[in-house]
């Protein structure tokens, strides 16, 4: 049975989702928990980084944006001005998304470890066709650098497990825990 996946509040004008999203009706939803460490940096002028998290195929095709952490609270949507600094995300997905996007956009996070959980079958994760994917996380810091980290994963997860990758400058450890 093929059903239309629940559409997130953001509008996916040009994301190629047709092949990746095949409906199933799981009894309990599988979960992905992303834990990311934002490093504490000793710089004269520190600003919490803008961060974008998204899923792409192992061939680099964007599937869905999971989270964007940026200055959402600025008036007149002014925080969106710097989103293109997350340049891979911007080019793959961000520039066709209306920001802020419900369930995706939230404020920047300070240095430390932060976890976010996504449920399979629910926006923004949605339904993923079985296959090999990458969780991408990109960070850009005002008067600082930009870094992108990829964590490969298989979907659906056959057993509980995870994988980890580490950034070198703007991102610390990024770990992905899957619960089938």
């Amino acid at each position, binding site marked *: 049975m093929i059903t239309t996946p629940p559409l997130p509040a953001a509008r996916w004008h040009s994301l190629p989702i047709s092949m990746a999203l095949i409906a199933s009706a799981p009894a309990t939803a599988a979960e992905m928990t992303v834990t990311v460490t934002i490093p504490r940096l000793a710089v004269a002028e520190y600003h919490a980084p803008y961060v974008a998290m998204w899923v792409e195929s192992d061939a680099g095709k964007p599937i869905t944006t999971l989270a964007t952490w940026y200055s959402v609270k600025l008036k*007149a949507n*002014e925080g969106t*001005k710097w989103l*293109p600094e997350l340049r891979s995300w911007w080019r793959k997905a*961000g*520039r066709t998304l209306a*920001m802020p996007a419900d369930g995706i956009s939230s404020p920047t996070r300070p240095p430390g470890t932060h976890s976010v959980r996504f449920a399979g079958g629910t926006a923004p994760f949605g339904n993923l066709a079985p296959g090999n994917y990458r969780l991408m996380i990109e960070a850009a810091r005002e008067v600082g650098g930009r870094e992108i980290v990829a964590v490969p994963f298989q979907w659906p997860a056959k057993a509980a497990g995870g994988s980890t990758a580490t950034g070198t400058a703007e991102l610390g450890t990024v770990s992905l825990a899957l619960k089938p």
Partner: protein
Amino acid sequence: MIAHFTVCRLLALAGLAATLATPASAHRRWLLPSITVMAGDKGLASVDAAASNALFAFDHRALGLDTLAITGPDGKPVSPVVIGKGEMRSAFDVPLAQPGTYRIALAMNGMMGSYVLNGEKKRWRGSRARLSEIPAGAANLELSENLGRVETFVTLGAPSTTALAATGQGLEMLPVTHPNDIVAGEPAEMRFVMDGKPAAGLKVEFVAGGTRHRDQAGIQTLTTNADGIVRLMAATPGFYYLEADMEGGTAAAPAPGQPAVKRRASYTAVLEFLPQ
């Protein structure tokens, strides 16, 4: 002498004096935007206009803004906010009120000619619309037409192509790869047309900015294929300049029996290749 004075006044009025006097290869003419990829409910790009040797240095003179034509994502003209015109550069801001791609251009088009009337050789400068100024008794009419386009592109939000449609006049660059969707290390393809038709075998010069700070000029000379398509490859991110010139195109004779118009068209563009 009077004819010369009149020609000079015509040049000043047409704003052509500074821009058509020098051959295209002598100096590079460019519009350099402050940014090409933007986000937000609205945006603003600030653009410098200059002719120079080093890229993108202000080492020669400013470009006039009289022929500035900005096309918005809906295909309609956008008014710039002119900051000023100095000796070395002109500058203007482009307000971006709606999402999409904006085409920012200096589009110059002028004609000049000579003829003989009552035994005197006369010179004329004008445009196709003003060919009727040439008196009926003119003999030995020689006409030439110079078209020049100096362009750059900026996008607010998602790229679009409405503003990039060909005007069908002179030498133009049309996107195969969108000009605001280009990154270093990935080939970008552009299609050149002359009067709307593919410009095959056209030589295109392509060079990275920052020429003053390196020994090798690094100018790539590329050639368009049979479809007018050229493949641009920027090894490192930054602003790049490209230039192409060609002669010919549609050469409509001003009147039956008259010689064809000698046409020359030039095109320059500034493209920003972002990092991977």
